[in-house]
């Protein structure tokens, strides 16, 4: 088994390039803030950032000047408010314009599916009688080859790099996820290069003992990075809860460009990596996010010789 274990610093240095289309997926759950911060630290520029819900991580990356374009379907600080660094650029080109390409959730999911399955488009029953196709000319009508029905189509999304946070993987990159699955699988299969960031590195035998839980096979993974609490302030099912205080605190920081710069200087550029960030947050804050137990039942795959 070839090991793909590396540091997040080396993975980003090698696999994320200026001008790339980058998808850091994860729907509320499993958002790789660790990788986003590493991309900011390495000062990548002119990225196209794709994500259903840009969340605080893309507000930080866009506020840091990493991106020229955003591809998305819901733009907000979930449960809290707005992403003001993104809004400044969209509403007043401050400090520079941000190109946007906007879909619905099903449209974004379908774009990854088309990318992952090597098809020229994904058909769906959305967008009828809305202004979205006018706002985005990549949302087009298509007639069924088997009858008169007309539906909408969206083009494949094939990121240069997908970055997937997960509970665990083995050194070969066989990756297991539970809880909200989001588009982790679709984004990984659609991408040219895949970085997996995990809470825990496990032995291959752990993966093989529960193959139904494998979402991303090592076959398509380029790098495996181990970063405990790498999804903070988002959450990892069974490991830690969302740090909602952080999301609330982000609102005033995001509103004020000087405060945002100061935050990036302290919490991103001012630390060497995730371990130092977590140490800076403090053990008490992290401990308070630990959930109580709710183990799954054990299934028996059986032995067949």
């Amino acid at each position, binding site marked *: 088994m070839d090991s793909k274990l590396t540091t997040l610093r080396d993975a980003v240095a090698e696999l994320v390039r200026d001008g790339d289309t980058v998808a850091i997926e994860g729907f509320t*759950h499993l958002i790789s803030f660790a990788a986003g911060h590493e991309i900011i630290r390495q000062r990548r520029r002119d990225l196209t950032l794709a994500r259903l819900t840009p969340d605080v991580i893309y507000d930080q990356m866009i506020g840091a000047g990493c991106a020229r374009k955003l591809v998305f379907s819901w733009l*907000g600080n*979930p449960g809290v408010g707005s992403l003001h660094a993104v809004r400044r650029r969209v509403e007043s080109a401050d400090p520079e314009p941000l190109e946007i390409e906007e879909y619905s959730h099903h449209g974004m999911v379908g774009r990854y599916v088309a990318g992952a399955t090597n098809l020229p488009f994904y058909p769906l*029953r959305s967008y009828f*009688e809305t202004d979205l196709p006018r*706002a985005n000319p990549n949302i087009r009508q298509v007639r069924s080859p088997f009858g008169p029905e007309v539906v909408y189509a969206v083009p494949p999304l094939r990121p240069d790099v997908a970055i997937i946070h997960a509970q665990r993987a083995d050194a070969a990159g066989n990756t297991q996820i539970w809880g909200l699955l989001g588009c982790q699988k679709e984004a990984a299969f659609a991408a040219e290069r895949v970085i997996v960031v995990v809470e825990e590195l496990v032995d291959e035998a752990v993966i093989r003992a529960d193959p139904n839980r494998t979402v991303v096979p090592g076959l398509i993974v380029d790098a495996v990075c181990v970063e405990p609490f790498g999804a903070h302030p988002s959450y990892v099912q069974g490991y830690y809860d969302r740090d909602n205080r952080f999301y609330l605190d982000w609102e005033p920081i995001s509103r004020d460009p000087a405060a945002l710069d100061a935050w990036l200087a302290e919490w991103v550029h001012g630390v060497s990596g995730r371990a130092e960030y977590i140490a800076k947050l403090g053990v008490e804050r992290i401990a308070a996010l630990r959930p109580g137990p709710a183990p799954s039942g054990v299934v028996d795959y059986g032995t067949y010789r």
Partner: protein
Amino acid sequence: MTERLSAAGGQGPASAPGESGFSRSEMMIVAAARELAGQRVCFVGVGLPNICVNLAQRTVNPGLELVYESGVFGARPARLPLSIGDPTIVTGATAVTSMFELFAYYLQRGLVDVGFLGAAQIDRFGNINTTVIGDYARPKTRLPGSGGACEIAINARHVFVIMRQSKRSFVERIDFRTSPGNLGGADGARIRREQGWLGAGPSVVVTDLGIYHFDETGEMRLDSLHPGATLAEVRGTMAWEPKVADPLALTPPPTAAELRLIREELDPEGVYTK
């Protein structure tokens, strides 16, 4: 959620509990939860719908199956979810799927009875804007966008809307159509049928002042006024002259049990009811 924050702006007196002992936000949440009686499967939108469905599950509809766009079917949240991706909707759920499966198999397949949405702007035909205020290319205010709302409005069998009324939110003409309602009115049903949409469109709008359903011309009609609200207030918080049912009903006030659930169990910090 921006919808919630912006819609709440400038309505101070509407939020405080009055002499009646309940606030208008509480009345709105209770009225919307009651509308879910008898429904089977509800797709839960961002913001206020979240507390309404959790109240309905504890009152009028214990068997209500909650569907969250994050990929959860049959959620049984132990605490009020902070967002539609909260881990509490996963633990104890019937099924957790990829978002592809959720949108394709559950929603587009036609398994959702009610899509429950919030909105920044709505017109008299129930067309919804959650994308921009002003011009799309240079918006005055950039709102979150569709999320799943566009396809929910098309594919859910019925759509429920919950939002506070104001001249800014109940408008003659929405700035952007994110989610289709009854389109231009009476033709809406025909267009939905001809284009093969599964959904019949919006069927109820619950606000802080009353409950609206849609008449045969596809237009919103005020059917019930909440206790303490007046017709003058209703007219003063929307951009068009509303149709009013005759006789106009009075919404039964929240029961002590409903208020206790909201205040003590679901939202003790007043996130949704402030």
